[in-house]
């Protein structure tokens, strides 16, 4: 097969886009214009915020038949061919049909995969990504980070789903502003914002990135400063825990009108003695981890200390799940 040379779309900025990104989201100033709000959301969010991080992929030497089985099981029409994070090509339903027709289903994927791929960069704003969805007929785009590593896959549905969540937040804010600030929001439990971050084991260069993002998101929503601080500390401690002590996991942020909840869930190895783990100064960190500034043994106790509600569950060999709830103080007028 020829030299791997995908077209990486990076999205050239135009002046209008920059101005839009700097414009604060003030419904009054925008005249409550929903199309401008949508544009702002599309600028604010990046491909990485919305993409699926669990990429189903196949190796170059696997057969087309295996590719067909994976695509059928997972109901996808495009299967990236990748190894160790490097993207080599894509097998599509068309390739399978041609393979069935031509009788070469036992051939390796690399012999028939498409290699002139259009991929998106993780840091690209959604506004640009949507333009490319329009220009190309592909249902999904693989996503690469700045090191050309395959980090996700994004479809138009992923984008629409994320936009719907955000739009519902903005619409509620607009409704509240027009009604006046004093009324109780009885539907407060229904209205929520949720985001997930993958945490990779021992990936110390990225460790803490979810907590940094979480802090940024809460500040954007103008949540009480002291609450933001406490959430950020708990999120950071729990994320580092996943990174240095577990096989990997996820951080989940859930914001309702009354609470902010951080959930840290990993795939193991589990904590044999939870009470011991939650004590100040107890840690299972090895010397290497300590040399990097971690492992003081304060993670769980710090998170517990700063949260309003703290829950930890664990099963050895299976998982650990820690949840911290923070109450948002009601602002009096």
């Amino acid at each position, binding site marked *: 097969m020829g030299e791997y040379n995908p077209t990486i779309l990076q999205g050239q900025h135009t002046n209008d886009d920059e101005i839009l990104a700097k414009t604060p989201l003030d419904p009054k100033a925008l005249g409550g214009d929903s199309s401008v709000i949508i544009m702002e959301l599309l600028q604010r969010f990046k491909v990485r915020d919305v993409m699926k991080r669990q990429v189903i992929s196949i190796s170059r030497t696997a057969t087309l038949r295996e590719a067909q089985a994976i695509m059928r099981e997972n109901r996808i029409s495009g299967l990236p061919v990748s190894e160790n994070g490097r993207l080599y090509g894509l097998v599509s339903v068309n390739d399978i049909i041609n393979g069935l027709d031509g009788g070469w289903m036992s051939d390796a994927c690399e012999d028939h995969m498409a290699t002139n791929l259009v991929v998106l960069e993780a840091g690209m704003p959604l506004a640009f990504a949507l333009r490319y969805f329009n220009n190309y007929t592909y249902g999904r785009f693989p996503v690469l980070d700045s090191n050309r590593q395959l980090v996700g896959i994004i479809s138009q549905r992923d984008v629409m789903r994320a936009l719907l969540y955000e739009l519902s937040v903005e619409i509620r804010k607009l409704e509240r502003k027009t009604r006046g600030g004093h009324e109780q929001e009885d539907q407060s439990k229904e209205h929520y914002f949720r985001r997930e971050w993958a945490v990779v084991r021992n990936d110390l*260069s990225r460790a803490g990135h979810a907590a940094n993002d979480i802090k940024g998101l809460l500040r954007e929503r103008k949540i009480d400063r002291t609450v933001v601080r406490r959430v*950020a*500390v708990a999120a950071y401690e729990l994320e580092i825990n996943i990174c240095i002590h577990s096989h990997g996991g996820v951080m989940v942020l859930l914001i309702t009108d009354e609470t902010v909840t951080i959930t840290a869930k990993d795939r193991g190895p589990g904590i044999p003695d939870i009470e011991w783990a939650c004590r100040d100064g107890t840690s299972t960190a090895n010397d290497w981890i300590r040399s990097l*500034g*971690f492992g003081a043994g*304060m993670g769980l106790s710090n998170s517990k200390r700063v949260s309003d509600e703290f829950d930890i569950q664990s099963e050895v060999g299976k998982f650990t799940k820690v949840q911290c709830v923070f109450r948002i103080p009601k602002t009096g007028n």
Partner: protein
Amino acid sequence: MAGDGTSPRAVGAVVANDLMSDVLLHDADDILLLTSLASDQAIRTAHIVGAMGVVVHNAKPLSETMIKVANDLGIPLVSSPLSKYDACVRLHDAFLAEERA
């Protein structure tokens, strides 16, 4: 090393620590973090506690990723050839000089 140095802010408190867990315990505003931990983690921890800057002492080499994270998160990053103790003394003297002025 990072930050545009065009918007000066007053330092509220100096935290000199290499254990990021301990840094997280501080609640003051506008902390200046003084550390020998030349890693992305120092920057990320600084961002979490709302620190206004990070000084890495002993002239420890700063990696490109550390500088990039500092730029991404908007945290001014300074390298100093002094030891931790000397840097603390210098900062303390500066505080006293400001108070007297």
